């Protein structure tokens, strides 16, 4: 079965600085997707970024980018120029035959 690990239960970053959230996963599948979801206090799940495993190029969405290392099964999220509105829970997720969430990282942004 696939597993997703987020080793940082909590992280903090100064406003305007850069922070990287870690995610590793385990799978024997070759074809899959990886995602980062943001969950603010409202609890709404918001898709931040997605990566297809067959693409070598790292996905980017404005201030959000990933470092996808397929051989190492690593999928970290980098948030540049952090804003107060980035404060939330961040979930890494794997989608292949099953959809699996990591346990989440709570990100605080300090003014």
């Amino acid at each position, binding site marked *: 079965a696939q597993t997703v690990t987020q080793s940082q239960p909590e992280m903090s970053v100064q406003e305007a600085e850069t922070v990287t959230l870690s995610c590793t996963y385990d799978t024997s599948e070759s*074809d899959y*997707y990886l995602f980062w979801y943001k969950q603010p206090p409202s609890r*709404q799940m918001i*898709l931040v970024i*997605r990566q297809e495993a067959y693409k070598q190029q790292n996905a980017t969405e404005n201030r959000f980018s990933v470092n996808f290392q397929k051989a190492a099964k690593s999928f970290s999220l980098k948030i540049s120029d952090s804003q107060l509105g980035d404060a939330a829970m961040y*979930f890494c997720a794997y*989608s*292949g035959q099953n*959809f699996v969430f990591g346990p*989440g990282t709570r990100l605080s942004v300090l003014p």
Partner: protein
Amino acid sequence: GEEVAQTPKHLVRGEGQKAKLYCAPIKGHSYVFWYQQVLKNEFKFLISFQNENVFDETGMPKERFSAKCLPNSPCSLEIQATKLEDSAVYFCASSQRTGPEQFFGPGTRLTVL
């Protein structure tokens, strides 16, 4: 619709009462997923459907939980004889097929007193 809709937003039940939650997936999406998120924030997968057929029910506590997705009706998740530990936010998500991202509804917060 263009968003996953979940009703009700909040539901309060006394221990032992029945709770029923509803989900309308995005139009055109074939897959529906139910998750339970307790206060620890971890998501627990419950069940998924491909159209009206159960796709994966490995996460369902079968004794008290049941779910359906019938044609032309919202999907439902029903908990018989609720327990205190059922208190959680229940999310429904839909997708066009397995693989791509799931789109989440706003969740239903169930409180069991």
